[in-house]
């Protein structure tokens, strides 16, 4: 037998090499090689760091190319792509609009990247795809995304905020005006409008409102008073200067809600951060190297980062750890 055919040793066989050359273009590398390193940067900047690092051109990107068209699978009813009904499956290119009515559901398949389930009464548009960055616009309705890909691979624009995956699974629900909710079920998601950002870990949620953008991350099992007061801070007329609302948030907070308190540091005026620090420190003591003044002024980023780590929420960039959640 031709040795080259068997184990590629011996004299190269031109005919075999020709077959290798032509057919080799159909090969595909497993997209799980060479993961991004963990960052030691501040949690505050984690999301931005993830985006920058990955946008800077990690060579992994080509492994997460779903192609110019995304596959759409009808899960129930008759979803429509660009107003045309699809029976079982179809494809949607950039600019395409996928719509479900009250009886239909669909799934957007993203090759090895993951999938997005489109719930009833939803309108979603594919706005960009390529170079490892993919973007959809959720005009209204509900989507559930599960991604097995490096952070910042998928962005979901809503009328009031943009959700950027940081290696995760999440649900976004929004109406035409932009009133909505992000709920993260695995990993982390950055929710943002311009400079206003919320980095939301698994198990937590964040509201979004038109003109305001994302609210502060919170746990949905927190007390009603806590959530109502937080909503006043995030979207009320008094904004983050609403001392009454802040008092309720602080008094109602449980140790778990330190997530919300630490997230509020950047939103509250400096004058209100003292009592925020005191309450957060009661619930989860800050690391030894972080003083009250430093936390208030934001001058000890590693110290604040260490405080975040004490919450035990994991690292937003450690997406590989969460990959199995894609399969749940």
């Amino acid at each position, binding site marked *: 037998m*031709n040795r080259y055919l068997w184990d590629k040793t011996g004299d190269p066989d031109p005919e075999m090499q020709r077959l290798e050359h032509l057919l080799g273009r159909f090969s595909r590398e497993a997209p799980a090689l060479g993961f991004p390193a963990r960052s030691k940067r501040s949690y505050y900047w984690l999301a931005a760091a993830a985006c920058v690092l990955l946008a800077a051109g990690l060579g992994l990107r080509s492994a997460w190319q779903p192609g110019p068209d995304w596959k759409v699978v009808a899960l129930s009813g008759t979803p429509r792509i660009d107003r045309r009904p699809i029976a079982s499956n179809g494809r949607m290119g950039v600019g395409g609009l996928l719509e479900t009515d009250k009886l239909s559901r669909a799934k957007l398949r993203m090759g090895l990247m993951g999938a997005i389930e489109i719930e009833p009464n939803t309108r979603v548009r594919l706005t960009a795809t390529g170079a490892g960055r993919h973007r959809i616009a959720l005009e209204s309705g509900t989507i559930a995304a599960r991604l097995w890909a490096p952070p910042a691979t998928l962005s979901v624009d809503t009328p009031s905020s943009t959700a950027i995956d940081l290696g995760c699974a999440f649900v976004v629900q929004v109406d035409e005006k932009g009133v909505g909710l992000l709920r993260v079920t695995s990993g982390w998601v950055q929710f943002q409008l311009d400079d206003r950002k919320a980095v939301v870990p698994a198990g937590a949620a964040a509201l979004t409102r038109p003109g305001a953008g994302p609210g502060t991350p919170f746990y949905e099992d927190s007390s009603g008073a806590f959530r109502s007061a937080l909503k006043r801070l995030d979207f009320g007329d008094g904004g983050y200067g609403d001392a009454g609302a802040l008092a309720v948030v602080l008094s109602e907070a449980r140790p778990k809600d330190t997530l919300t308190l630490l997230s509020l540091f950047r939103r509250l005026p400096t004058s209100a951060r003292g009592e925020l620090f005191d309450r957060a420190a009661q619930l989860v003591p800050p690391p030894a190297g972080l003083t009250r003044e430093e936390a208030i002024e934001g001058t000890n980023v590693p110290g604040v980062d260490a405080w975040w780590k004490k919450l035990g929420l994991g690292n937003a960039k450690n997406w590989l750890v969460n990959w199995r959640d894609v399969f749940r």
Partner: protein
Amino acid sequence: MVAAARAGDDRAFGELYRRFFRMVHAVLLSRVPAGDVDDLTQEVFLQAWRQLRALRDPLAFGGWLRRIAMHQSADHLRRTHYTETLDTNAARAPDDEEAWFLLAEVRRLPEAYRETLVMRFVEGLTGPEIAELTGLTPGSVRVNLHRGVEMLRARLKGGT
């Protein structure tokens, strides 16, 4: 590594994924349209991950995974009522035309041959690697390669 993955070690399963990816990709590419292979590859590893605890012999992982891929491709073809559709692929260069023609010819070979040839020529695996990943004996792989190439050669020359 299989034992570790069965015990819930995600990194071990990730390593199995990387190691067996090309084999699974080849099994699927030899059976279903190229455009469906990525999705199905994910489905195969999803099923493997879910059912890994049912695998009694860790040494049989490769063969077990290959059978999952074969079943997935069969289910997929049933679901999509696939007959002989051409892979859609816009704007092919002349060289691409030849490659797609060649892939189509390989896919017309008997199942055992086409799968082994795809592993060898598409995925770049050697005969010993194919045997190790699939659980087939080296002798079977050797026969598949030899007869597959002979049959492909005959087809390309206008034979059977």
